[in-house]
């Protein structure tokens, strides 16, 4: 049996009491203890953070960006162009422009209407500085998004191709022509618009959808203007109510989706006659395709395409330089010699075979036509739809 001295017993019970008291305190006042831990944890977290940052730095050092010696060109050396021209046309011109001016050109290409509608949709808030290409009727229709510019050398341009307000600057002139398959047709059989209405060509005529192709629209209106009997009705575009149905009937309701398909269809013999632009026809002929060109007796229309500067252009000066370049002698020269387009310069009107002076022109009121475009297209699609229905019925 143990025996304890009184002091020992006291000591033990005191120790127990102390433990109990401590326990109680730690339950009642946990804050100071917790705070201590928190501080420690913060320290640890900080340490961890430091280490990981250090490690990241270490791991990312030695990474170099490629081409750091190269600097992207400065803003004043840039130009962004929306173009509806084919790459084979815009590329050499843009390239030469870059070489001569040191301006880097970015090009976004697409259909005329597609690009113009994008501009309209964004209320002109696009990055592009310049719209290059497209018939002037289309540019007129969207003129609110452009700012006028009187290009250097504009006085050299044939007045018939100039815009009254200089909202666009003409680039090239594009006469509408008739083409035919040289193998299947002799040149005597086709010399005028009137001949196209000959019953033997019914359903054998290639024309693009005027709603899709600006050149087809010009072609259709030229056709209508040339063959309409009441020549006085210049007041109204395609005013003769009979003429559009007549043409539709002669086409037998057939249209091509893309203007590029027209010479193709004539060359491979699926059609006998085609309505297209001189440029398109010459391009095909240069490839050795067996098509011939007719400048109709009644005359034809020569509508220019153009370039226009967008409102809010970031590189306004460079866009202006481009327009200046586009009507320069050098550029117009190469246009006529290499790209089968007609130069718009007065001095060059006599060049070419036949020259622009020799080609008989129909009256073609561009502002009025631009204004009436939608009405004519609605009528046209109505008549074409009618013929399709008749065909189905029969």
């Amino acid at each position: 049996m143990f025996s304890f001295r009184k002091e020992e017993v006291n000591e033990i019970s005191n120790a127990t009491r102390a433990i109990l008291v401590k326990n109680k305190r730690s339950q009642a006042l946990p804050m100071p203890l917790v705070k201590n831990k928190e501080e420690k944890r913060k320290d640890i977290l900080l340490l961890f953070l430091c280490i990981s940052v250090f490690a990241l730095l270490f791991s990312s050092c030695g990474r170099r960006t490629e081409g750091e010696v190269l600097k992207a060109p400065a803003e004043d050396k840039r130009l962004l162009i929306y173009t509806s021209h084919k790459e084979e046309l815009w590329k050499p011109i843009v390239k030469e422009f870059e070489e001569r001016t040191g301006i880097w050109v970015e090009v976004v290409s697409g259909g005329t209407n597609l690009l113009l509608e994008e501009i309209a949709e964004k209320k002109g808030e696009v990055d592009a500085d310049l719209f290059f290409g497209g018939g002037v009727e289309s540019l007129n229709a969207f003129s609110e998004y452009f700012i006028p510019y009187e290009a250097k050398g504009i006085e050299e341009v044939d007045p018939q191709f100039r815009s009254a307000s200089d909202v666009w600057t003409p680039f090239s002139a594009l006469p509408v022509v008739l083409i035919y398959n040289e193998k299947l047709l002799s040149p005597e059989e086709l010399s005028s618009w009137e001949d196209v209405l000959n019953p033997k060509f019914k359903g054998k005529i290639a024309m693009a959808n005027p709603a899709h192709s600006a050149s087809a629209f010009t072609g259709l209106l030229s056709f209508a203007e040339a063959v309409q009997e009441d020549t006085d009705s210049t007041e109204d575009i395609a005013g003769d109510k009979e003429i559009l149905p007549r043409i539709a009937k002669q086409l037998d309701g057939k249209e091509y989706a893309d203007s590029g398909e027209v010479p193709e269809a004539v060359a491979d013999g699926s059609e006998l006659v085609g309505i297209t632009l001189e440029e398109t026809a010459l391009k095909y002929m240069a490839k050795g395709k067996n098509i011939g060109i007719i400048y109709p007796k009644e005359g034809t229309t020569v509508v220019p395409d153009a370039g226009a500067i967008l409102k809010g252009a970031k590189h306004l000066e460079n866009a202006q330089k481009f327009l200046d370049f586009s009507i320069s002698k050098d550029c117009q020269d190469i246009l006529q010699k290499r790209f089968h387009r007609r130069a718009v310069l007065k001095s060059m009107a006599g060049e070419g075979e036949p020259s622009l002076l020799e080609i008989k022109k129909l009256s073609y009121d561009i502002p009025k036509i631009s204004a009436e475009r939608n009405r004519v297209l609605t009528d046209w699609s109505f008549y074409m739809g009618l013929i399709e229905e008749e065909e189905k019925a029969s």
Partner: protein
Amino acid sequence: MKGIASFRRYFQNSFRRRLFGAFLLCSLIPLLLSLLVLFSAFRGSRKEQVDKEGRESLKLIRESIIEARDSITLALQELSESVELKRALTEERKERTEVNRLLFSLTEGLRDTVRFDIYDKEGNLRYSTAPYLESRSLPTDWGILQRATRADSPVYESSEGSDSRSRLFQIAVRIKGQREGGDKEISGYVLASLEEEAFRTLLSGKYGVQNGILLLSSYWRPVYSENILLPTELFSTLREEFLRGNPLEDSTGEFIYTVTPIEDMGLYLILRQEKPISKNMNFLMLLLLFLSILFGAALSFLMGSMMSRRLFTPIERLRSAMREVTLDHLDVRLRESEDELGELAGRFNRMTEALAENRRALLLNQETLLKNQKELNEAQIRMLQAQLNPHFLGNTLDAMKWMGKIHQIPEVAEMATDLADILRFAISPKEFVSLEMEIEILKRYMEIQKIRGFSKIEFHLTVPENLQNAMVPRMVLQPLVENAILHGILSEGEIELCAAEQDNELRILVKDNGKGIRKELIGPYSPPKEDLGHHLGLYNVDTILKKHYGERYGLTILDRKEEEGVCGTIVLAVLPLQRERLEG
């Protein structure tokens, strides 16, 4: 902040989680650090390797292109300065073979891959190293001839794309006029065209098999690409990235592109290399990292819960044992093991054992103490009661009675008879007697006192009939009366004994008309510090009453002059009222 707070709470609420967190930190930090360092070192070395390879092959290609350029321009310069050629171009003389011989001799060794053409000042092709001479002309106000017209040194031009596929790159030098000093005059142009074959020969074997090489013009338009597997839109993608000022990157993101300009030729060389760390490699690394983290976390969790179980279970046991102790259960014991916690458990066991032992000893002590006290009390009483040797006295008194009768001294006989009665009463084993009996003995005592010579003392009794049978401790009245005689009246006076009932208590008053008592004794009786002998009777009676009935009973001494206006002393004895029959 809320998230962090709850995160912190999650870890602080449990010892196990805290351990888990600590283990996690301890295992993950070094693991992650070493992995990161390892990865970055690996990446760095791969990167360096790829960079070096790229720089070397670009240098090689650049040098070979410049070398080719130098030999071509040398030939062009020599041609342009040839007097025969100038003459042939300006004077319209038919010196075809001579010029051709010159042309062929100066371009020896280059003609396999480079075509040399000589144009007149209108841009019409006149002589050529090509196998057949087509009729061709170049505009002099456009492109390369336009620039050659203005420049004294060779001019360079990249192809415009699709339509001149075979002539990717051209170098032109103008031929000056024939006359001396006629620097402004131009008689024609010499033009060297590098075809695809030329680039293929120049570049072949100078860059890695997996790599690709691109040649761009000064405005980043395509000139040549060696690898036919390169996507066609790559050129425009790179140009867009460059114009935006971004690092060169294609849509796949698996390649790096390194650019070297050859400024004076207006060319850019771009080498395409696979990234030093491919996507697969990156994925593998990430996977490894992820798995390591997962493994570390799992291990930490396991270790944490194991350690906490090993630590926490004994602590929990200790905790509940302590709770038991606070609830006064001292018999709890903990299992003892070898480690520190085991030691703690051992200490706890010793402690509770000691506590229990202590408690036991304390209880034992108390009991003994109580018992001892009781025994002491009884002994005291007996000792008080046995201060006379009763048997001897009784026998002596009997002998005295008979001697008094024989010798005809009746007073002696009577005194001896009374004294023997008193003595017999005094030594009877009964502790409690009736008041009547006590008074009878008191009467005997008074008779003895009368015979002794205290005949002038008058004794009055006032005891109600209903108190005759009240029980009192034996021999309590006699000492009180004796005290009254010895310390009060001495030889002549009156003594009165009254008994009364009040609040279930018996009050007995002994009054005398003597000289009175000392002032300091008045009040509840308390034994004097010294000199017990004077009032031994009072002390004994008080002690007996207190021992029998408790501390609230006993004697009280009063000054009769204060109470009743008569000189003398009153001794009041108070005890609980008990009747005879209860004892019966």
